[in-house]
């Protein structure tokens, strides 16, 4: 059985992977085994950094062939190395799951002897967990770039989600900072998996055969010179062409002194704005062209939806009792749930400003962009709106930044992969 010492090393090696979600799969129990996957996902605990624990996130090994500049486990780093056997991983997962500590396993690994050998042992572990240990909970498996397709496809038949990390937002940066990885080595398996899922669906195979919760990826922001516009274009194409479920961003923080890496971190505000823009692409019907020019960065003083709305003041204000849902979704401050509640409620009675407040619609920003029964409650001109919003965001950002700055100091010991 595994000891605390190795668990610590292999956990610390895995913790900078952002993905923690356990949603998107509804794997059933056959009536004898252990567990099932709940399609909404379940959070089991929260750590003092504010992140949720849903899955047991560990590396099988942190001994790596590769020497990626930004990685704490890179070959040339002087860190303690450890390994956990497939059986040890299975036992730990089962025992944590039974106690309801976790929703499943997120297994990853450094590339310890060759990509194929690593992928093979990861695959053996998840198959063992499913077949021998009869585990039906959630499994997220990290794919090893460069491993044989057949191995990757085999694993995909047993897990709920797979991910290959793109790492850096352009091929050029990848060549510079992770010379042993190649764009094709990362993109190709993602494409193949996307295709296999598509075929799986078309054949009418029962949902859940191949990675029912789909694929995700992650990239480091600010270790290389790409603009937000470039990053978001890459994101949009990943969502549209590869059908990815999520793209995670991790703001770079200097950990290694290297002439190839910037000496300063990208800051968490940039990461935050990228996530906001990401949401606009996925849930609000925006196209990247509307949000950010190719060589541009997102505004830091206001969120991307506000920025878009202020550039398009001629479309506002919209009447809350008449505007189509797509337009309500574009009002700063109104989210997907809010838009739904408004369209529901206005079928029964015309809504005024008070109604919206009682329905918990956040009006701080929205009031500048809507009318209720023809009445307007916002500031009249673009300049006035900008001033009002800037004041509010400044208060917010000040709060956030102070929270960031205390951490940035200590962050120097860690990688940017958050």
């Amino acid at each position, binding site marked *: *059985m*595994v000891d*605390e010492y190795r*668990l*610590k090393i292999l*956990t*610390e090696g*895995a*913790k*900078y992977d952002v993905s923690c979600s356990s949603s998107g799969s509804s794997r059933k*129990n056959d*009536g*004898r*085994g*252990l*567990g*099932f996957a*709940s399609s909404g996902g*379940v*959070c*089991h*605990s*929260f*750590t*003092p*950094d*504010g*992140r*949720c*624990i*849903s899955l*047991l*996130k560990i590396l099988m090994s942190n001994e790596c062939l590769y020497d990626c500049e930004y990685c704490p486990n890179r070959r040339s780093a002087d860190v303690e190395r450890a390994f956990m056997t497939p059986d040890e991983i299975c036992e*730990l997962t089962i*025992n*944590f799951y*039974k*106690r*309801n*500590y976790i*929703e499943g396993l997120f297994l990853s690994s450094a590339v310890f002897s060759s990509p194929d050998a690593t992928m093979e042992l990861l695959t053996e572990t998840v198959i063992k967990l499913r077949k021998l240990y009869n585990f039906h909970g959630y499994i997220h498996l990290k794919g090893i770039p460069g491993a044989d397709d057949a191995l990757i496809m085999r694993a995909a038949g047993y897990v709920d989600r797979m991910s290959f990390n793109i790492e850096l937002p352009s091929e050029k940066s990848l060549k510079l900072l992770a010379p042993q990885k190649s764009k094709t080595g990362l993109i190709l398996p993602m494409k193949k998996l996307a295709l296999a899922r598509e075929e799986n669906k078309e054949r009418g195979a029962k949902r859940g055969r191949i990675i029912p919760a789909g694929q995700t990826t992650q990239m480091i922001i600010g270790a290389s010179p790409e603009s937000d516009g470039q990053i978001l274009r890459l994101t949009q194409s990943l969502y549209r062409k590869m059908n990815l479920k999520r793209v995670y961003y991790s703001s770079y923080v200097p950990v290694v002194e290297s002439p190839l890496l910037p000496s300063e971190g990208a800051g968490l505000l940039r990461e935050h704005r990228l996530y906001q823009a990401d949401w606009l692409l996925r849930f609000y019907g925006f196209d990247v062209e509307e949000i950010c020019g190719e060589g541009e960065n997102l505004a830091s003083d206001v969120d991307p939806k506000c920025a878009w709305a202020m550039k398009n003041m001629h479309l506002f204000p919209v009447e809350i009792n008449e505007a189509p849902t797509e337009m309500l979704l574009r009002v700063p401050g109104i989210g997907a749930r809010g838009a739904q*509640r*408004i369209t*529901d*409620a206005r*079928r*029964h*009675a015309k*809504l005024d400003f008070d*109604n919206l407040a*009682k*329905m918990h619609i956040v009006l701080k920003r929205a009031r500048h962009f809507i009318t209720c029964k023809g009445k307007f409650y916002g500031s009249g001109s673009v300049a006035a709106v900008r001033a009002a919003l800037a004041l509010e965001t400044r208060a917010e950002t000040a709060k956030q930044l102070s*929270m960031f700055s*205390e*951490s940035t100091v*200590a*962050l120097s*010991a*860690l990688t940017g992969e*958050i």
Partner: protein
Amino acid sequence: MKYFLVDGTPACFYTAVFEAYRERECIITSERDVQIGLGAQICEVAADGGKAERVEKKLSALDKGSLREIELILRSCDPLKENAAFNYIKLIVESGGPVRTMAAHPSVIEALAIVDRVTREIDRLKGFLRFMENSDGVLYAPYSPDNDLTDILARHFARRFPSQKFVIHDLKRKKAALFDCNEIVIAEVGDAEIYLSEYEKYFENLWRRYYRSINVESRPHERQMRGYMPVRYWKYLPEKRQ
């Protein structure tokens, strides 16, 4: 003003709805220390299967989904829950159908806010409930939730661990759900004496170690942690025990 005092069971509540429906002004409550104004009339309601069934049938015909919502409301710790449910029912009957999309109506706002709060606690506890293994291999989870959720959680875990015996124990309400791999039995249980399995401490320690290691210390955000995982739930979490 007429007060209908109920015993907290759904049958008694639905009987009270039947009785109270024709009253112009009345309050249904299961609170025993309720403040009653001068000149108030008090009416202790005894569950009547026939009357309760008529109300439920009517509701089911008008809006099937409302029965589930009322069920959740009645599990709430909100002192005004019966009245919120009653007003919601009245609105359904007046409108002759589902009203949950009338998101601006005060009765709907009030009722659905309670449904949301109970649902949120169910979702939280699906994650925060912690089992320990006793020496016979039975899992035991003590907890004290705000709302009365034990049977709902027991159904969730019976689906999850179909071949694993477990006990979920609500220490606040002194009741427990016992699952024997076959059926769930709800019983009145005060204190329980537990003999832990020899591995329990070992896995608990591994879990505490994991919790400490997965945290990114340089990026503290305790406020967010407390927001997502309120302190009142920490008592039963091994990772938060000092």
